Structures are given as structure tokens and as C-alpha cells.
């Protein structure tokens, strides 16, 4: 059985390797906004969160001061340990997770980084969650808007056996309806 870290690494590798296979435009980068995709199957949900690093860290360059290092560490830990969505009864458990920084255009895996500091940077988080009662939930919650005040709009899109939908959460909004 794979450990959580191994699973996390394999997901990170799969994500990182995808863009190499075909040409594509660079992704959009708008401070204050983030996107979250949710794919449902029974009581499991795959989450992909993409956000400008500035929304979460407050900076987009490689951490320079001890405070910035501490912020980066805290945010990375928080994103890895907390389910990005949850049922109203908080039944979601993290099965696998990965947090990928592209601080200042570089890939940052465990302190090793390289890249162009003049570019914008994104944080990508993937999670596989097991949530008891998810298939009966008509609404879900997310702690992101409360945890990161710089996040002004969180665009959420979902797909599953019950259909597809989208919602936009503003500051202070933490729950959205699935329209079941």
C-alpha cells in the first residue's frame, strides 16, 4: 500500500508532466481570484485548486525573510492537512494530497527551487477526499475564503453523476449548493 507521501508525489508528477505533452497557452493569473474543480464519484471527490500564490502567501517571489519562510511553511502545511471542501457535517477525510508551488516561476519541492523571479507564481493543490454522506449532500463548505482574506473570489466548478454546476464565493461566503 502506498504511503500518503508517495501518493502525493505520484499525483504531483502526473500534474507536472501533463503540460509537457502538448503545447498550450499559459494559464491566467488574476490576484484575488482562485479556481477550484471538484469531480465526484459516490463518496469520493477529487479536488484541484489553482490560485495565485499572492492570495495565500502575500508574496509571489521565493521567500527571502524568516517571516516569509514561516508563512510559506504554515500555508503549505495548512493546505496539505485541511480538506479544501467539506460536507456540512464535516465528514471529509484526506486520502491523498499534494501542494505544488511555482514561486517566482520556479518549481519548489522541499526547498529546492530555481526560476525567473519577475514572473507571477501559482499554488496548485490536489486532494482526494473521502466524505461519508457526500452523495446525499445538497451543499458543501470550504474553509478557503475564511482562511485567506486576500481571496476575493473563489470560482468553483463541479462534475459528477448528478450533473455539473458552478458557483462563485465571495469574501465571507463559505458554502455553496450543489443543485441536487
Amino acid at each position, binding site marked *: 500500500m502506498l504511503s500518503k507521501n508517495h501518493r502525493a508525489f505520484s499525483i504531483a508528477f502526473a500534474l507536472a508532466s*501533463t*503540460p509537457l*505533452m*502538448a*503545447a*498550450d497557452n499559459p494559464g491566467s493569473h488574476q490576484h484575488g481570484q482562485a479556481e477550484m*474543480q471538484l*469531480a*465526484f*464519484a459516490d463518496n*469520493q471527490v*477529487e479536488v*484541484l485548486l489553482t490560485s495565485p500564490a499572492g492570495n495565500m502567501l502575500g508574496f509571489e517571489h521565493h521567500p527571502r525573510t524568516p517571516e516569509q519562510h514561516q508563512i510559506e511553511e504554515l500555508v503549505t502545511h495548512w493546505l496539505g492537512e485541511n480538506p479544501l471542501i467539506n460536507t456540512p457535517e464535516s465528514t471529509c477525510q484526506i486520502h491523498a494530497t499534494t501542494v505544488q508551488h511555482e514561486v517566482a516561476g520556479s518549481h519548489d519541492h522541499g526547498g529546492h527551487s530555481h526560476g525567473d523571479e519577475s514572473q507571477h507564481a501559482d499554488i496548485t493543490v490536489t486532494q482526494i477526499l473521502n466524505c461519508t454522506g457526500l452523495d446525499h449532500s445538497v451543499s458543501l463548505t470550504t474553509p478557503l475564503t475564511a482562511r485567506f482574506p486576500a481571496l476575493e473570489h473563489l470560482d468553483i*466548478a*463541479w*462534475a*459528477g*453523476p448528478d*450533473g*455539473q*454546476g*458552478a*458557483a*462563485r464565493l465571495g469574501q465571507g461566503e463559505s458554502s455553496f449548493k450543489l*443543485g441536487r
Partner: protein
Amino acid sequence: MKIHLALSLASASLWHRRKVLALVCLTLTLSVTLLLGIQYLRTEVKQSFTSTISDTDLIIGARSGQLNLLMYTVFHIGDATNNIRWSTFQDLEQDTRIDWLIPISLGDSYKGFRVVGTDKGFAEHFRFGRGQPLNLAGGQWFDGIFDVVLGAGVARTLNHGLGDKIILSHGGGRTSFSNHKDTPFTVTGILEATGTPVDQAVYISLQGMEAIHVGWESGVAIPGRTLTPEKAQNRDFTPKTITAVFAGLDRKILTFRVQRDLNQYAGEPLSAILPGVALSELWRLMSQFEQALLGITGFVVVTSLIGLIAVLLTLQTQRAHEIAILRATGASPGLIASLYLIECLALALVACVISLALGALAISMFGPWLLTNYGIQLQLRPLTFEEWSLLISVPLAALLVALIPAFSAWRQSRSQGFGSPGGT
């Protein structure tokens, strides 16, 4: 005991003034029906709009914005930026994650209605509403190259029936001088009304779409180069390009992964969109109109409740004798005030019940007619939480409003002498 007394007095009083109160109740009923009706319509229109297409996991077209792709493939509004190659469609057919594909080819029209070139997968896999399939009201799906199936709206508007011959126009627009007159199509089927843009389109096979464009390479018909139905037989009409593809996946959890892969497809620039997500975002753009509609209905109810206060206050002056008698028989000011509250609450409850019955009757009577004639889909269903909340708010608001005449009556009856009705 006091409650029982208050209820029996209130019912006797209501019955005594039944003619006037029936009119008040009618006004309130109409207002509540309007409020519930608009809220119901709002929910149904939203449901109908966001279910214009269902069970389709991805729409794939040439690289463009998701709303543009949605508008021209599903709503038949606007045009494609580019086509996609047939080889791309064949590549998609090889993707084991994809369960089914519906190719769509657009570009022509029939008297202003969009012509959609597709294959039998459209009849088999296309779903709308809550997963409802397309049904034929008559005839059968296209089998031959020059067979055509009409949407319900097209058949109704142009008064077409099975077996009619129609000539499609080259390009869009209601009036076209470039007609495919050498290759008339025969109506072999007419679809049942769906309340979606499907009703407003004309469906032919991809082969038919190719066949009518032989000899039109320069944009106009070159005499002698176009086909006739006889010449078209036994020819290969495999398309070189199509406009878009509807796709259904085996496992819905893979939707975003397949989308990402298609958006990075190496063969040509593609856009894959999730129709349900695009429809939700489109509806969000219109949410201000939705709120305005609800605001208007709120005003209607407020106006109606103010009318109710006015009537109750007017009736109060007529009830001076009744109150005096009640006071003379020992009724307390509190009991008299409670009469107003009970009466107002009863009126509001009766209005709500009649509104519900009226609404259910109207939807069951006019729902099918609205769908057939106007393409508006209204189904009888249990009320949502929001609708129940609105309905419950009416008697609560009425109770609140009744406090004004109740307080006035309480004050009046306290100062009223036993022997001087109406005096102070």
C-alpha cells in the same frame, strides 16, 4: 377557554362580514398567487435553462471562450470561430475514457432556423431536462441522405408535416438567396416539444450536409457541379471538418482530466467545456434580473398587505357596535385585540391555501399548452424550501400587519364606556 372563546367569536365575526372579507381575501389571494407564481416560474426557468442539455459531459470545439462555444452549439446563437478536423473526431473515438460522441456540423439554415448536421448518436444520446431523451411526435429519424427531422417549433411555425419537401438555404439568416434547390429534403420525422433550443432547429445527417455542399466550394452553386439526389447515391460523404462534438464519459470523475487533456490536444487547438458549468455561469450573469423579478413580487405583496390594513382599519369603524357589545358582555380589551389578529391570520391562511390550489390547477391545465406553443416547460412539483419560506412569510406578515388595528382596537376598547358605543 379564552382561546376557544376568541376563536368562536372570530369565526362568527368573519362569517358575519363574509361578503366584504371575501373581496379582501380575493385581493390577498391574487397577490400571493403572483408571488408564488413568479418564484415558481423563476425556479422552473432556471431549472429549465440549466438543463437545456444534460448528461453531456463535455462539448468540444475549436479554441474559443466557453460561453461562445455553448451559445453556438446548444442555443444556436452566434457562429463558430473555426471548425475541427474529422481526424480529431476519429481520435476522440479512440479515447477509452469517452463513452459516446455526437458530431455537430452547423452553417446552414432553413427559413431562419439553424440546420444541424449530426448522426444517429444525437437521437440515442442527447438528453435534456432531468435526463429526458428526445422523442419523435411522428415519423422516424433520418435514414437517407436527404431525410430531415424537424424540431417541434419549426414544424409548428412553418406548418410542416411528414412527407413535406423542404429546400435548405446556404448560410444563416431568415432570407437567403442561396438555396440548395437541387437537393430538396423530405421531412421524415417531427420531434416532440422539449422547451429547449432543440425545438428551433432542423436535423439532417452529416452525409446530407456534405452532399448539399458539393459544387458550393466557392460559396455559391457552380452550375453543373452540384448534385441531384440521384447522383448523390453511392458516393462517400465522409466530412472533412465538423463544428463541434458532444461527448459523454464512462466515469464522470474523469471529466476535468479529459477536459485538461483536450485543451492541450497536440493535433489542433481545441476547447473542451463542461456545459453544466457554462450554463451555471451564464445564469449567474442574469441573476440581477432574477433578483429584480423577485423584488417586484415582494412589492406586490407589501402593497397587498397595506391594502389589508386599510380595509381592516375601515372595518374597525363599522365594528364599533360589535366591540361595544363585546365589552358590555365582559370581553376584555385583550380579547378584542386578539380577534383582529386571529381574523387577519385566518384571512392570510385561506388566501395561501387558495393560492396553492389555484397555482397547481393552472400549472396542470396550462403546462402542456405552454410547452407546445411557447416552449416554456412548467411541471407540477413539490415546493422548494424557498417557496415554502415565502408562503409562510405571508401569514406571518399578515399577523404583523394586524397588530396595527389590533392595538388600535385594544386602546379604543379600554377607553370605551359600556353605554356609549363609538364614544370615548
